[in-house]
C-alpha cells in the first residue's frame, strides 16, 4: 500500500532542533500503529484540532491507575490507533539509568507497544505512548518481571519525583533521591489504587533553587534548606578575586543586603541572622560559599495548576523539618493531611482548594500544626477574626 503523504508534518522535519516527526517515522517503519498515528496527526494539522477522545476504563489487574485510556475519534479510518493507550512507568529516583535497565524498557515497549516514549512525562513518569487494550496486561507482566512498576494516575498519589540531589549536587540539604524512593515504596497502595477526592502530588527539591519546580507542581512541596550559617572558604574567595570575578557585583543582588565584600582583605562577610537562604550568592560563588551544616527542608502545601480556582504556589506549613530515614515525622504529617483532606474535600477538590475554603486556621488546628509567622507574607489586615469557642467567655 502506498504511504500517505504528509506535507504539513514534513515541514516539521526541517530546522536544526531534533524533530519529533523523525522520531515517529523511525518507528513507523516497523509499527503500523505509528504510521496511522502520523497520519492522524497530519489530519489534526489540517483540521487544527485534536482527534482523541476521552479514555474509557482500561487498566491492569489489581491497579486502578497507571494506564491512560485513549481512543481516536477517527478509528475507522485509522484502525491501528483506534485504541492507543498510555502506560505510565515509575522511573528510578533522579531518572538515572544503567544502559542495561534502559534497554530492557525499550525491548518490552517495542514488543508490546508503539515504541514511542516520553522519558519525562509531566509528572516524572516514563510515558509509554500507545498500545491496545489487549497488550496492556502482557506489557505490565513483562514490566513487572523485569523490575518495573506503573506510576499513578487519576485520584491517587501521583508518582513522587525528586531533583538530582546528593547524587550530583553540592547544594543538597537532604537525600532527595532516598526520600523520593522511600515515599514511593511506602505508599504503593495510595499510588496504584485511586481512592481520594482527587490527585495528590509530591515533589522534592533538595535546596531552595527548587530544580524540579516543586512549589508550582506539587500539592506537597518539600524544599531543602538549612538553619545555621553559610560556610565561607575565604581562600576560595581570594581565588575568585584573583581571577577577576565581580564579587561585589554578585553580592549586590543579595535580597536582604546581608552579605558584603571586603575589597582590601578579599573576604566575604555575612550577617547570617538576616540571610533568607535564597541561594543566590552560593549559586554564583560555589567554590567559596556552601549551604550550612544544620540541614533539613521546608514543607509547603497546596500547589496546583489553574483548574479550578486558580493556580496556587504551595504555602509554608512547616518552616523547618529534619529529614532522615525513616522520615517518621514527615510521613506522620502526610497521613494526617490525607485523612483531613479525604474527610472534608468535595469531588475533584485539591488540598489547596480545601484549605482555601475551610481556612488555614482550621487546617492548622485539625492537622495539629502550630501557626508561625514564617507561614505568611503579612498578617491579616481585616478585622474579621474568628475565635474558637473556648477563647471567649460563654454567656448563657
Amino acid at each position, binding site marked *: 500500500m502506498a504511504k500517505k503523504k504528509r506535507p504539513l508534518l514534513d515541514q516539521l522535519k526541517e530546522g536544526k532542533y531534533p524533530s519529533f516527526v523523525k522520531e515517529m517515522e523511525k518507528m513507523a517503519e516497523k509499527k503500523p500503529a505509528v504510521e496511522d498515528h502520523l497520519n492522524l*496527526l497530519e489530519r489534526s494539522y489540517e483540521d487544527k484540532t*485534536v482527534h482523541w*477522545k476521552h479514555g474509557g476504563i482500561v487498566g491492569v489487574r489489581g491497579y486502578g491507575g497507571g494506564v491512560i485510556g485513549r481512543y481516536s475519534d477517527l478509528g475507522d479510518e485509522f484502525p491501528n490507533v483506534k485504541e*492507543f493507550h498510555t502506560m505510565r512507568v515509575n522511573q528510578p529516583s533522579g531518572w538515572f539509568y544503567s544502559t542495561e535497565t534502559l534497554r530492557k524498557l525499550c525491548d518490552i515497549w517495542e514488543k508490546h507497544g508503539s515504541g514511542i516514549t516520553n522519558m*519525562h512525562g509531566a509528572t516524572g513518569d516514563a510515558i509509554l505512548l500507545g498500545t491496545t487494550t489487549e497488550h496492556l496486561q502482557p506489557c505490565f507482566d513483562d514490566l513487572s518481571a523485569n523490575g518495573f512498576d506503573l506510576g499513578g494516575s487519576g485520584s491517587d498519589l501521583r508518582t513522587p519525583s525528586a531533583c538530582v540531589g546528593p547524587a550530583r*549536587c553540592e547544594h543538597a540539604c537532604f537525600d532527595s533521591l532516598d526520600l523520593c524512593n522511600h515515599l514511593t515504596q511506602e505508599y504503593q497502595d495510595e499510588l496504584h489504587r485511586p481512592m481520594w477526592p482527587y490527585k495528590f502530588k509530591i515533589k522534592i527539591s533538595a535546596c531552595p533553587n*527548587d530544580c524540579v519546580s516543586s512549589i508550582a507542581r506539587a500539592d506537597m512541596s518539600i524544599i531543602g534548606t538549612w538553619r545555621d550559617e553559610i560556610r565561607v572558604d575565604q581562600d576560595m574567595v581570594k581565588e575568585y578575586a584573583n581571577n577577576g570575578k565581580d564579587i561585589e557585583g554578585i553580592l549586590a543582588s543579595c535580597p536582604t543586603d546581608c552579605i558584603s565584600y571586603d575589597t582590601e582583605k578579599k573576604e566575604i562577610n555575612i550577617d547570617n541572622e538576616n540571610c533568607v537562604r535564597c541561594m543566590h550568592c552560593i549559586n554564583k560563588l560555589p567554590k567559596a560559599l556552601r549551604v550550612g551544616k544544620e540541614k533539613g527542608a521546608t514543607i509547603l502545601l497546596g500547589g496546583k495548576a489553574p483548574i479550578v480556582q486558580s493556580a496556587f504556589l504551595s504555602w509554608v506549613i512547616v518552616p523547618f523539618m529534619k529529614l532522615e530515614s525513616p522520615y517518621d515525622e514527615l510521613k506522620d504529617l502526610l497521613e494526617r493531611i490525607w485523612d483531613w483532606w479525604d474527610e472534608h474535600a468535595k469531588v475533584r477538590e485539591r488540598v489547596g482548594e480545601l484549605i482555601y475554603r475551610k481556612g488555614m486556621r482550621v487546617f492548622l488546628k485539625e492537622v495539629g500544626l502550630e501557626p508561625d509567622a514564617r507561614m505568611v507574607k503579612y498578617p491579616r489586615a481585616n478585622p474579621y477574626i474568628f475565635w474558637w469557642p473556648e477563647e471567649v467567655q460563654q454567656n448563657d
Partner: protein
Amino acid sequence: MTNVAKTDIGPPLYKDQLPEIIKNNYGQWKYHEHVKPGVLKHVAENGDELYTVRVGSPRLLSVETLRWFADLADKYCDGHLRFTSRHNVEFLLTDASKIDALIEEVEAEGWPVGGTGNSLKNLIHTQGWIHCHSAAIDASGIVKSVMDDLYDYFKKDDLPAKLKISLACCLNMCGAVHCSDIAILGIHRTVPKINDEEVSKACEIPNVVASCPTGAIRPNPKKKSVTINEEKCMYCGNCFTVCPGLKIMDPDNDGVAIFVGGKTSNARSGPRFSRLAIPFIPNEPPRWDSTVKAIRNLVELWVENARPGERYGEWIERIGWEKFFDMAGLPFTDKHIDDFIFSVPTFRSTTQFKY
C-alpha cells in the same frame, strides 16, 4: 504458563542505576563549574571529577533513539545516563578527554548540546495533538518551531540569566507552565457545544454541574442534559474533563496565549506566577509563525535590556509593567486585567507609575 505478575514492587532502586563515580561520591560533592555551554564539571571532596554533557531532546523519543543513547553511554560513560525534568539527556563522564568526541558524535546526528547556566533551557511541554483529548493547540509542533528559531540561545550561556520557556496545550496544564519566564498556553475562547444525547448517556449531571467554577451549568431535566449560561462561562473546559458530551474544542477560535515573568527558584526573588502578555494568537500549523515571532521578540527584548542576573520577571518588576508593554510594543487591553476570584490584589492602589 500463567505467572501472575507481581504488583506494588515500585520503581527500580535508584542506587542500582548510578555510575560508580556517583556511588563513591554520593553526598560528597564540593562544588561545580561551567566548563562550556552544555558541559558541567562537578568536583568531589576527594578530588574526583564528574563531567555532565547535556543534550536537548524533543520529549518524544523512539526506542531506537533511546538505544542509541545507551550505546553512547556504553562507549563514553561506563554505561550510565540520566534524563532530566526538562526532557534533556545527560551523559555522565569521568574522562574529560572524551567530552569533545561525545559532543561531536551527538551533534553529527543533529542532537544539540547546551542548556546549562545562563542559557535557554530545553522547552518543556505537554502532549498536544499527539495524544491529548482536550488540547487547544499542538505541543510538539510549536515547541519544535520555537526551538528551531531560538536554537542559538540553547547553545550559548551568556544570557542575562537562565531562560525557561514552557508550553501547556490547555488550561489543565499537565506541565504546570504557570511559573515560567515565558509560558505558551493553549486556550479555548468559546462555550462548550452541548451534545444532549451524549451528555444524557455518558455524564453524571450533578458532577457536571459541580465541575463548573463559575456556576454556569444548570441541569436540563427535559433532555436529561444541561444548559450553559454563555455569559458566565470562561472556557476553562473543566466540564469537558468530566463529560465528553461538552466538547470545548473549536478549531476556528482555539489558539495561543503568552504569559511572562514567572519563576520557581528562590534565588534572589521568590517564586512567582507568569502574567499575561499576549492574550491570543491563532493556531497556525505547521510552523506557528506568529507565535514564533512573538516569542523571539519577547526574548530579544529581555536579552537587550535586562541587567546581568535578572530573570525575565525580575527585569519587568524593576522597570514596571507599563514600561514592559511599551517596550514590547504590545497593546494593553481589557483582557490583561484579571476578573476572576483573586483579582483585587492585582489592581494598583498607588499614584506611583511611569509614562
